[in-house]
């Protein structure tokens, strides 16, 4: 449990849904097709100066605008610290740099794609852009990268080193990465125009998603605050029963009638059966929504889940695959995000504030 009060003061997300536009709360979600769900992009040039945008790959543009959305809500121009999680980093720039290295025999390499090919580009790019000279770190820890960036931000706030932190998670899918994942048999086999099967087709493979979600976490509740961040835990281990016992402990104090569980099922029958086994043992009475049915699978998809959870608690709305349903005020007090992938699992708890 987090030792001091920490609030989500602002949230911004670019995802395969139109999450950058507040109208999404009324207009709802779009039904994606095929096995690769690209982000619905905002007009980046409205947000980023033309001279600055020319060196940014798409994932950096997403990070920048998602961060601006969160900072605008929190009414800050510059955060005191920046922490970002990414599973795969800036893939487009990495590919560009490596392919030029091969083509040109290690010579005549573009400095821009080199600079952006390193994983710590994400947090450092934001620091340069917003002129933030504070703590700066990018965590690259596979599917718990975002949770570990949250943990770092929480430690900073608990220690009193800062009063607010910009924290986020971002990953992109590129033609090359999609092709490689497809060759490895990771992607669900669907035609490009085929309707997505709602994550319950009982087949192997997942749908490739992408996105960037950023939050301003602060040590005081403000008018813009969405919710209180109560707990972030990560763990490693393959035994579903052991994981279930850990989750059960966390869920014991929560009322199922006042709690929504956002679960990280990704549509891959093998992985989902493990998640089902864990949740049926640890949280059988809790209502579950599968958040990746909106954003697809990517290493930092739990950032999208935190954006969703923030709105659910603040607006008192329940998500469905088509949009949000209003709830009576005070109906929901807690949202728990759980995801399990390979050897890693993660748990995030938010409370209404």
């Amino acid at each position, binding site marked *: 449990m987090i030792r001091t009060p920490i609030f989500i003061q602002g949230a911004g997300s670019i995802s395969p849904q139109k999450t950058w536009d507040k109208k999404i709360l009324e207009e709802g979600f779009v039904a994606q097709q095929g096995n690769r769900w690209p982000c619905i992009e905002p007009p980046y*040039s409205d947000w980023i100066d033309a001279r600055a945008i*020319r060196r940014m790959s798409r994932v950096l543009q997403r990070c920048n605008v998602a961060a601006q959305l969160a900072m605008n809500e929190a009414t800050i121009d510059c955060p005191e610290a920046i922490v970002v999680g990414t599973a795969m980093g800036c893939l487009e720039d990495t590919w560009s740099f490596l392919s030029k290295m091969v083509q040109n025999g290690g010579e*005549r390499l573009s400095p821009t794609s080199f600079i952006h090919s390193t994983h710590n580009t994400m947090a450092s790019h934001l620091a340069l852009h917003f002129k933030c000279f504070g703590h700066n770190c990018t965590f690259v820890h596979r599917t718990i990268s975002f949770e570990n960036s949250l943990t770092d931000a929480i430690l900073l706030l608990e220690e009193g080193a800062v009063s607010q932190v910009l924290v986020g998670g971002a990953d992109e899918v590129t033609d090359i990465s999609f092709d490689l994942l497809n060759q490895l048999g990771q992607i669900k086999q669907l035609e490009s125009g085929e309707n997505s099967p709602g994550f319950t087709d009982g087949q192997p493979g997942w749908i490739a998603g992408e996105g960037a979600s950023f939050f301003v976490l602060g040590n005081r509740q403000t008018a813009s605050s969405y919710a209180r961040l109560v707990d972030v835990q990560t763990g490693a281990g393959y035994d579903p029963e052991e994981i279930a016992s850990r989750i059960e402990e966390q869920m014991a104090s929560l009322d199922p009638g006042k709690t929504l569980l956002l679960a990280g099922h990704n549509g891959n029958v093998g992985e989902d059966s493990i998640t089902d086994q864990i949740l049926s043992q640890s949280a059988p009475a809790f209502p579950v929504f599968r958040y990746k049915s909106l954003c697809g699978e990517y290493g930092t998809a739990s950032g999208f889940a935190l954006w969703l959870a923030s709105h659910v608690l603040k607006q008192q709305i329940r998500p469905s695959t088509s949009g949000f349903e209003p709830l009576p005020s005070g109906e929901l007090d807690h949202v728990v995000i759980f995801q399990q992938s390979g050897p890693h699992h993660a748990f995030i708890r938010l409370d209404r504030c």
Partner: protein
Amino acid sequence: MSELKEKLKQQIVDQLNLKDIKPEDIGDDTPLFVEGLGLDSIDALEMIVLLQQQYGIKMVSSEEGPKVFRSVNTMAAFIESQKGQN
């Protein structure tokens, strides 16, 4: 020389991804850095790569940079002077 300058302007726009500038916006004598096009040190590195890639010219002295990259005119003159030397 005139053809080389036009080609250089297009290459600068492409290499530096200058989204809001067209080649014809760049004057032959327009300063490329600071008060002119507003290019910076990373752009300078990109221009060095451009010379290597497009013209096979390697910049060996860092002192040459400010003179060579002052404008399209100075770049074109440098390329002409290096013909047959690399």
